[in-house]
């Protein structure tokens, strides 16, 4: 395989666990350069765990993870980040005790290079004026949605090679969600591959070039976005039936 058509992110039979609690059982899929993969599934299916394994926050107990062709299993998260993978975790993803500007600078100085800091800052403030207003405030004083915006601003301004966003639109106002999707489309044009975990299934599928549906830590569907909708419904259905059976027996 030549460098150009080698997938940027590949998971091969990945299993993972939190201490004694096993969460993933042989998950495989890959993300081509510039592609968008929608990662779907009910609560607790393992979407966040997949994201964490890819970024090195949770070690894979077996299987292999390749970023840009390099096997990164066992590598610490910071090295994986330097290979060009960025992970925006679900929930709060900013340093509360640092100011908004310090949060941005911290991110830009590693990923953008030192000379680019002020240019990147200007760009971030231009795109998200709200951050400019609050730039001297501690990030902990921002609202949940504003914090979310701050953590997305970091990666949208200096795009990585592959970006994993967990719970993309959770907690954001509809107008802001539009902005963020516009930003994603923009970084994608610049060549960034995306893995999007999203509650708004239709919206994610509209952007996606393929979809993965997880069910209890295994892949239930992996294919074009058109079939994903049905797969998600099937999984949800199966769960409901399983629960009803458990209740009646």
């Amino acid at each position, binding site marked *: 395989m030549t460098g150009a058509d080698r997938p940027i992110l590949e998971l091969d039979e990945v299993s993972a666990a*939190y201490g*004694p609690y096993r969460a993933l059982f042989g998950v495989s899929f890959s993300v081509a350069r510039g592609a968008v993969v929608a990662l779907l599934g009910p609560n*607790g299916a393992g979407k966040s765990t997949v994201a964490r394994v890819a970024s*090195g*926050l949770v070690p894979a107990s077996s299987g292999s993870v390749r970023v840009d062709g390099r096997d990164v299993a066992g590598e610490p998260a*910071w090295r994986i980040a330097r290979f060009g993978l960025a992970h925006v975790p679900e929930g709060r993803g900013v*340093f509360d005790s640092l100011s908004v500007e310090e949060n941005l600078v911290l991110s830009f100085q590693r*990923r953008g290079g030192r000379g680019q800091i002020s240019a990147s800052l200007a760009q971030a403030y231009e795109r998200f004026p709200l951050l400019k207003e609050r730039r001297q405030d501690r990030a902990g004083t921002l609202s949940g949605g504003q914090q979310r915006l701050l953590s997305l601003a970091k990666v949208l301004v200096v795009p990585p090679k592959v970006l994993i966003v967990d719970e993309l639109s959770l907690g954001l106002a509809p107008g802001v969600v539009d902005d963020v999707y516009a930003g994603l489309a923009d970084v994608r044009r610049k060549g960034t591959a995306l893995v999007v975990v999203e509650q708004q299934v239709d919206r994610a599928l509209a952007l996606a070039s393929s979809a993965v549906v997880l069910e209890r830590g295994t892949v239930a569907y992996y294919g074009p976005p058109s079939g994903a909708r049905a797969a998600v419904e099937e999984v949800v259905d199966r769960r409901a039936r399983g629960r009803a059976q458990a209740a009646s027996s």
Partner: protein
Amino acid sequence: MEQLLGFAVPGVPYGCAYAVFAVGLVLTYQTTGVFNVGYGAQAYVSAFIFAWLVDDHAWPTWAAFVCAVVIVGPGLGLALDRFLFRRIPSSNTTAKIVTGLSLLVGIPALLPVVFGNQNLVGAPSIVFNPDTVYFHLGADVPVNGIYLSAVLLTVVMLVVLVLLLRTTRLGLEMRAAVESPRLLELEGVNARRVTATAWAVCGLMAGLAGVLLAPTEVTVQAQDYVTLMVAAIAAAAIAALRSMPVAAVVAVLIGVLSLTAQGYLPTSSFWYSAALPAFPFLVLVGALLFVPGLRHLDEATDPLSSVDPPPPPPAARVRGREVDRLVRTVYLALLFAFVVSMLTWMPPTWETVLNQGMAYSLVFLSVTLLTGTAGQLSLAQATLAGIAAFTAGQLANHLGLDFLVGGAVGAVAASVVAGMLALASLRLRGLGLALMTLAAALLFDVAIFPAQAVSGGTGGITLEPRWLPLDLFAPNGHAYFLVVLLVLVICAGGVALVQRGTVGRFLAAMRGSELGAAGIGVNLPWQRVLAFALSGALAGVGGALLAIQQTVIAPGEFNYQLSLAFVVIVVTTGVGTVEGAIQAGIGLVVVQQLMQYAPQRLQGLTFVLFALGALAYAAHPEGVVELEKRRWTERAERALARRHRAPATPAVTGRP
């Protein structure tokens, strides 16, 4: 004016010494998230080695400086990070405080063992000659090298550190690493290396401070040491552990004000003898009560903590019914064997030792209740025990009260003091609360226990044992044993009942999350006061019983270091359970007694066990003994499951 200068200027080196340490505390807190009171001990190590190399080995000053400050300072910092603090989860405030404090106690004790006794007085100076008078302030206030070194060091250090922390990339990353190493790693930064660098920088600064301040003689004398530490903590607290310049200014003010007041106050007055030594404590308590920033310490939690697996359940929780029955039988058999042995063949020395162990167990039960169940760290448990002991002693000697009655009164007194302490610190949590209790303990050590009226002065109180109803047993027989056993069984049962009952649930909820507990309707202030009062009573009972056995109680016997040792011992063996407290009490005295048989040279090594305890605690916050018990229980469960040929059900199920 001339006179004011004359009194104030000598305060400057003291103030600067306080400032250097206060800045160090703020620095370590900001860059590593640890309130490292062991910072003072780190400085001491470098000063010590520097003097040792120059005086005993005739090294040139520059070489000794390089060795003591440039190599040993950061090296020690790195070692602390590598072997202690790295293993402590950042959310575990208790572990961090306890580890820092045990360094403070352990390191100065270790040095003489390694290097032999060293006299640091007259330590070499590297910048200005301490004895040369460089110029005069006003007409005749001489300014010598000591003043110049101190001021120079403080100013340079402050400027360098503020620049480092506020303007450099590394400073930014250090502050970020404190909040969430994992989030920092997602930015492509090696958070471990950043934290290690922070420790190395702090170690370097501590070493520099130690070497430059040693000639001023403020850092080297044991009695100054506590004052130094408290003044530095007070200044750091007023700066809310955030601003280094504020901490430095306040520290200098404390030094200058104390010495100025000392100059003006008549030596015989109450103010001179009692209020002056207490001054830094009062500043500290004031800061804890009134500085709003201290109420929100340690509040920034790691946003990625949901990545960690949940902590393992305690041994008792994974026990099935069969193993449970077995364990109970073994416990009962042990208890029975213990009582029978004590009454029959146990040699008197060992009976005394084990009695003492049971009394300690009572004090440790107070830690179990307060720290294990309610999640509140108190560094004043020995002080509370002391309050009860002295109360009982004074009542026995002056009113001829039976010691058991006196002990009960003492326990009530300890309970009241504990309750008041809790009331005073209602708005503090975690580190703030620990500091408040530490301040209280130190205040008692310095100002209250040494008083003639409390402890009978330096000689202590001698007790005439009076046992009204129990004199029926032989005077030197097993009366004491039976009393302690009875009290221990009652108290242990009581604590177990409290833990299982509603109050225990409330306290456990408070330990888990104060906010959450308040949300389900737990009256937090009341629960906290209750927990402190109950624990004060337990500590008091234990203290009074210890005192009866000893017959002489000296003022220094219930000092803050003992409180510290108590907390370390209990958290090491298992802080959550009643058995944990008893294991700790008996274990402590047995180890102490065995050390008596060890060669003289090793006598000082108890503190090494102490340090090891802190180390073990850092690695296993649930306690080593608890950990082993869980492992064995799980093993037993598995063996049983095999024997029954039932499909092995794992202790914890993999999936819902």
